[in-house]
């Protein structure tokens, strides 16, 4: 509890004690009504003084209908009624008790909300407090990260957060990126590697040359995004604030009608008007009507959902996007870098007759030894992993532009390249067109040795992610790629995707997304998932743009609505789960709070519910709604 809350707490305790003492006194001693009134006023002012003041302030400043006003009218009304009927109907105790319970409820709410606010901010506790700089005498000095300019060498000790993005100049260390990505596996970093702020150095001492200012560093950007996320309000939140605006005046009018109309009707029918009964019912009605359960629990739910997502490396830029995500019916994916690794790997080795797979790989790796082409690199990597590295000396190395390479060693002459190369030296190679990927043919000493297929491979979690998304009720999953039809088809088959569009230029992707948007049904939303590097136009065209693997990429953070910090597609399904859970809780709270209120309002109007039930309807519902909202913080399992 903070200072303000402690003050309220003390006031609550004092007024409870006073109230109990007063009850005991009244039990034993006969006190005249006016004196009773005066005695009850002491705890009443102690507990409700500020509410009365606020209500008065509101009236004088044109803000009539708020909850302070409701509480003031209800309690003052009850007390005046007690005075008029000389303590028979309504009465002093009710008036004071309503105020007391209202304050207890408010205090509880304020503490609960403060706690969950803190929980959420702790989840996102990535803000570095200082940076270490070596001063002239070689001692470490702690400075404010904001004061560090680009190109400064900062020192990060084991257990410290990296405060600013940069490049490692000295030292190796394992970094814990879990605060950023939700990934618990530490990452090994060496001199020359780029590191991003917000990671925790687990082992070793690092000297890092900063490449950005603090304000431009990843950690600042992320914090900015998360802190601003509650500014973009969802439809549900806007609904509630509109609702509250109309609701309170309507309820006040109804209460007035309830106090006046029935007695007047009774009078006309020349019966006993029972003013006291109807006024007390109207007051009960007012107490019940406070809309605070809704007003507080809905933003809290969204804040919790966004917090839960952040702690899993899913940054949501606003509650409106979290809401939209739960309504997603169509998801379009980029292929390369999103569903696939975006790096090339040897996926197939088919030797010709008379050669083994090992021969083929060894020859190919010799031929590609001096090449830095991505394809050459993937062949060399494959050979290394299989222990097939040859150290045979190369005597001559010739690059044949557009075709491949010719390499001579002491004992062999090797050709490696595309089918055009093979044809030029007199072979008709197996056609590679049917294969998804790039084909490298190898020939050695006048014989055709075979072909190696190099292609992009699926991310290990892609298949699971697609299955999870299908299970979560996504109607259409479409893969959009600029790649050849064959590659697209084989990837789509592997993933179990029935729809794909291949051979798309970046502009075509926008057109395809437009077509998909035209196919939306009802409230359905379209999400596009891309790697964020060259998909910016599509990301902004889709209802929800999801960028992945965005750590350190400014373009993605700018143009996407939801940013996945690592490049694991399974996070999309997790984000959907979080959003659905959060929206379910929001709906539960809206229905529950409005439902109970309407029910209690009816009961109150009919005179079945008394002041005490009214207090439950107000404070109790709010407490339950707040507790329910806090559940948003918990991350759904089996994701």
């Amino acid at each position, binding site marked *: 509890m903070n200072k303000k809350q402690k003050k309220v707490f003390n006031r609550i305790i004092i007024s409870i004690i006073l109230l109990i003492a007063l009850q005991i006194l009244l039990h034993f001693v006969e006190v005249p009504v006016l004196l009773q009134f005066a005695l009850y006023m002491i705890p009443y002012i102690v507990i409700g003084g500020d509410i009365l003041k*606020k209500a008065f302030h509101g009236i004088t400043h044109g803000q009539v209908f708020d909850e302070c006003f409701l509480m003031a009218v209800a309690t003052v009304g009850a007390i005046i009624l007690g005075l008029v009927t000389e303590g028979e109907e309504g009465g002093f105790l009710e008036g004071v008790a309503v105020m007391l319970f209202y304050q207890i409820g408010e205090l509880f709410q304020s503490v609960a909300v403060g706690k969950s606010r803190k929980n959420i901010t702790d989840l996102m506790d990535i803000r570095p407090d200082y940076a270490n700089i070596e001063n002239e005498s070689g001692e470490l000095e702690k400075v404010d990260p904001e004061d560090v300019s680009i190109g400064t060498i900062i020192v990060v000790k084991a257990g410290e957060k990296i405060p600013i993005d940069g490049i490692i100049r000295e030292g190796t260390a394992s970094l814990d990126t879990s605060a950023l990505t939700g990934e618990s596996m530490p990452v090994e970093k060496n001199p020359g590697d780029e590191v991003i702020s917000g990671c925790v150095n687990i082992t070793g001492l690092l000297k890092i040359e900063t490449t950005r200012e603090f304000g431009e560093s990843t950690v600042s950007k992320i914090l900015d995004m998360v802190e601003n996320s509650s500014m973009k309000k969802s439809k549900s939140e806007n609904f509630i604030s509109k609702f509250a605006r109309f609701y309170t005046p309507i309820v006040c009018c109804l209460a007035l009608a309830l106090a006046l109309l029935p007695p007047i009707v009774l009078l006309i029918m020349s019966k006993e008007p029972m003013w006291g009964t109807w006024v007390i019912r109207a007051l009960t009605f007012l107490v019940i009507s406070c809309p605070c359960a809704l007003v507080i629990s809905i933003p809290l739910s969204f804040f919790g959902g966004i917090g839960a997502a952040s702690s899993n490396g899913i940054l949501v830029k606003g509650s409106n996007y979290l809401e939209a995500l739960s309504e997603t019916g169509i998801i379009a994916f980029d292929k390369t870098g999103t569903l696939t690794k975006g790096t090339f790997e040897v996926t197939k080795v088919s030797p010709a007759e008379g050669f083994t797979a090992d021969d083929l790989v060894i020859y190919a790796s010799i031929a590609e030894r001096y090449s830095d082409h991505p394809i050459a690199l993937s062949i060399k990597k494959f050979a290394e992993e299989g222990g097939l590295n040859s150290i045979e000396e190369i005597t001559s190395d010739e690059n044949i532009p557009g075709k491949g390479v010719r390499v001579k060693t002491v004992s062999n002459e090797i050709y490696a390249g595309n089918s055009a190369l093979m044809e030029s030296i007199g072979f008709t190679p197996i056609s590679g067109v049917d294969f998804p990927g790039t084909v490298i043919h190898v020939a050695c000493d006048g014989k055709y040795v075979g072909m190696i297929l190099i292609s992009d491979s699926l991310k290990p979690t892609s298949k699971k992610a697609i299955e999870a998304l299908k299970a979560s009720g996504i109607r259409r999953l479409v893969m959009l790629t600029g790649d050849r039809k064959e590659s697209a088809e084989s990837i789509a088959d592997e993933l179990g995707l029935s729809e794909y569009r291949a051979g798309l230029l970046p502009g075509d992707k926008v057109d395809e997304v437009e077509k998909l948007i035209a196919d939306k049904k009802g409230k359905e939303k379209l999400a596009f998932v891309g790697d964020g590097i060259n998909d910016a136009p599509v990301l902004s065209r889709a209802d929800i743009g999801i960028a992945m693997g965005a750590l350190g990429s400014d373009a993605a953070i700018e143009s996407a609505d939801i940013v996945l910090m690592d490049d694991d597609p399974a996070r999309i399904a997790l984000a959907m789960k979080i959003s659905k859970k959060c929206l379910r809780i929001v709906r539960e709270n809206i229905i529950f709070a409005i439902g109970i209120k309407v029910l209690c309002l009816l009961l109150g109007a009919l005179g079945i519910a008394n002041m005490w039930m009214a207090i439950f309807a107000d404070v109790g519902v709010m407490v339950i709604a707040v507790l329910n909202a806090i559940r948003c913080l918990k991350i759904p399992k089996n994701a």
Partner: protein
Amino acid sequence: MKKTYGIEVDCAACAQKMEEAAKKVAGVVDATVSFMSQKMKVEFADDADHSAIMQDVVKACKAVEEDCEIYV
């Protein structure tokens, strides 16, 4: 021109009131108040003097919600 200010406010409804009040101040294009992050984001009209406008915003907010705080 958008600026974000730290605020202190006790209830969500009060934050809502502050938002409404701030939006009505002359020179303010748009304003959002987040109770959860205890922040107020104000979008000013182009080439407006925001420190002067913020004084009006503070006044307007104090009028609707007495014990709120805006850290300008």
